[in-house]
């Protein structure tokens, strides 16, 4: 506790509060731009910050990381254009809310949810770091595969009105995920002899193409949509009493789902958002509102992706173990200052570590103060005439994807996926399952094969490892339970 108080003393110096504010502001901005993520931004800032005091630099980087997660929800909700993959789920219900004039409420629940989750995540980081790390290390390839199976079962909640169309979209995503060099054998798969495809198709390119470009093409193809004026605000600007009541539990649940996933070496910020969405849909008193703009579907996943960020810092600070692209860059930053993250960091540089943790609390407050007043301004984006708005989205999508790799090939892919996204909308295929297939497919495949490689082909590993067996049992339960419920409901009527 004393250490944390000292940390606040470090973080609350004039200069460090300044770095924190710069970080969250910059983070929010890059979160809004599709394609440009926190990893790239920190990488580009590294040479600039080489001459700074390390504490200030890390405080800025952490603020940037949190800010990016928050900022990407804004465009997800208002424009159906996720800035980061962690906000794809937010786009589903959030954008529907925005179309009904509840965009401000959706932004507010995302902002407050991010604040709650970020704070809970930071508290968990302060108190539970060593414990969480021990648990995360128990996850080997077999356990990851079982976890992916659980994640796959939850996709059913996102398939939309037609299961067949949803499944086709999911399988399209799985197929896209196969393209590139096979991670286990180094052999090229489905690359058509094109060098650029050897690294696989970037998830950012697909997500921005399917969501942003596809949406723009679709709107352009429909004259009747062009003239529809979306009501920017209906009713109160802020969240209503009912919206508060429906948000706080998803915030809490999302926070506790996201945190451990961030700490897992292959967890990431995306999978907890799928799980949170699925859980909220199951637990909601109004499940029929899902797919029509349910606030729980924004509150839960937004909390989940922010607390995952706090989770990422657990293995990074305690073991020097990066669990996301951004964390890997942060690790490089530590090394640039000659600091070695790991067990020795807490003892050797405790002022830096606790200053960083304290600044996370401050960063969360700064984000809330920065973003809540801006909600009213952001929703006015929707008052921009549709053709101009979508032209703007196309420009930002193109810039964002180009800046990601400076690759013209990526731009071509962006527009190919834009056309695919248009066709999917035109023929009523949901796009979210495609992205989920693309994220989960390679993870499931690689870990399945790694587990079998380690066990030398013995399939029983998935059932003899306790965590793996438990997860597979949960997955089986999720699949079987609805049928059992239906059977039980039928029996009385048949009597």
């Amino acid at each position, binding site marked *: 506790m004393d250490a944390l108080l000292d940390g606040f003393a470090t973080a609350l110096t004039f200069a460090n509060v300044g770095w924190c504010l710069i970080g969250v502001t910059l983070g929010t901005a890059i979160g809004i731009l599709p394609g440009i993520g926190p990893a790239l931004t920190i*990488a580009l800032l590294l*040479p600039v910050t080489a001459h700074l005091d390390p504490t200030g630099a890390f405080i800025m980087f952490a603020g940037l990381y949190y800010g990016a997660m928050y900022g990407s929800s804004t465009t997800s909700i208002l424009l159906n254009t996720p800035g980061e993959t962690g906000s794809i789920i937010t786009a589903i219900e959030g954008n529907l809310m925005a179309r009904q004039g509840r965009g401000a409420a959706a932004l507010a629940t995302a902002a407050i949810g991010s604040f709650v989750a970020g704070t809970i995540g930071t508290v968990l980081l302060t108190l539970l770091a060593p414990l969480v790390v021990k648990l995360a290390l128990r996850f*080997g390839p077999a356990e990851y595969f079982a976890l992916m199976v659980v994640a796959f079962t939850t996709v059913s909640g996102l398939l939309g009105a037609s299961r067949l169309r949803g499944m086709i979209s999911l399988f399209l995503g799985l197929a896209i995920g196969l393209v590139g060099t096979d991670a286990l054998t*180094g052999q090229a798969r489905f690359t058509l002899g094109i*060098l650029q495809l050897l690294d696989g198709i970037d998830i950012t390119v697909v997500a921005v193409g399917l969501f942003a470009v596809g949406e723009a093409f679709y709107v352009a193809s429909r004259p009747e949509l062009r003239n529809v004026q979306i009501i920017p605000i209906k009713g109160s600007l802020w969240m209503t009493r009912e919206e508060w009541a429906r948000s706080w539990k998803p915030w809490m649940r999302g926070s506790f789902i996201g945190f451990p996933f961030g700490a897992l070496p292959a967890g990431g910020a995306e999978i907890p958002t799928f799980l949170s969405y699925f859980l909220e849909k199951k637990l909601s008193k109004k499940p029929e509102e899902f797919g029509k703009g349910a606030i729980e579907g924004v509150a839960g996943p937004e909390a989940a992706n922010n607390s995952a960020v706090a989770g990422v810092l657990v293995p990074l600070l305690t*073991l020097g173990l990066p669990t996301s692209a951004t964390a890997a860059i942060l690790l490089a930053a530590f090394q640039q200052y000659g600091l070695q993250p790991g067990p020795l960091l807490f003892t050797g540089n405790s002022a830096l570590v606790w200053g960083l943790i304290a600044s996370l609390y401050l960063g969360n407050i700064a984000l809330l103060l920065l973003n809540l007043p801006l909600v009213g301004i952001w929703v006015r984006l929707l008052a921009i005439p549709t053709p101009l708005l979508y032209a703007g989205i196309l420009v930002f999508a193109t810039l964002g994807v180009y800046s990601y790799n*400076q690759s013209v090939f990526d731009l071509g892919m962006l527009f190919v996926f834009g056309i695919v996204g248009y066709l999917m909308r035109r023929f009523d295929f949901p796009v979210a399952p495609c992205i989920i297939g693309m994220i989960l497919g390679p993870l499931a495949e690689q870990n399945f094969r790694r587990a079998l490689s380690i066990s030398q082909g013995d399939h029983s590993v998935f059932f003899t490892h306790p965590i793996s067996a438990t997860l597979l049992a949960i997955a089986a339960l999720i699949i079987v339970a609805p049928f059992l419920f239906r059977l039980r409901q039928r029996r009385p009527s048949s009597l």
Partner: protein
Amino acid sequence: MKSFAVRTLAAAVVLAVGSAGAPAAFAQDNIRIIAPASPGGGWDQTARAMQEVMQSEGIVKSATVENVTGAGGTIGLAQLADKEKGNPNVLMVNGLVMVGAILTNQSAVTLEQTTPIARLTGEYEVIVVPAASDIQTLGQLVERLKADTGAVAWGGGSAGGTDHILAGLITQAAGADATKVNYVPFSGGGEALAAILGGHVTAGVSGLGEWLGQIQAGELRALAISSAERLEGIDIPTLKEQGIDVELANWRAVVAAPGIDDAQRKVLTDAVGAMVKSDGWQKVLADRGWMDLYMSGDEFAKYLADENARVSEILKTLGLVS
């Protein structure tokens, strides 16, 4: 009198260096360094450090870095060989990983089509086991490899990369069947580290710098290092002194475009040589913990050819290249 002369001389030097119009002060007016990877990685860091040192030491007037990402650097390589052919103002960073990627990706362009300039830095690899493992020495690991090669699961970076190559070379040198190496690639050092710390694989291979913290904290036990001699200040025995005749450095180098003449090659080689000898570069090496593995000219060209032969042989044995 003397001080006046010195001052005049100093002023003349300042003028010569300071005035942008003095071409003699720069080996090269401008230079573009291709980093064939995305920002943040090792090749990018090398390119950006070169840019900074070459500019601040007055070796070139201006240096820029261009990231050409993808396919283990072979996209950048293809660009250097095609688009930049004959261009004396371009350098590209490369390394051992690219030698492997050219083979596994069946790249149409190879390093032989570039003009070798110099090897710059590198890092040695360590072989580790988790602290809880009952394997105490490299000898015990070798015994296991000989008894049942497939039962030793190695964790490390991408398939066909430096870590994979070293696992293959060690198995081969131990007299076991390298075609049966059970190498489990992970994406990124973080995932591999987690698998080793969690005891999910038998042993791990990675660059020393990546795991030094965990080794010093006693969470990983280092069995061997892939250098020829023990490194100063690092108490890890080499492979060689433990009877495994393998030496491997994950080196980084610079090459120039094909089709430049000998004079142009010499200008670039001298410029890089001047950079390596500068205080600025020595400071970069110290700050980042990079090993100085400078080697240039024909010696480097021969080294490149030898590494290519060695890597392609082991990748064939490992079944990655047919």
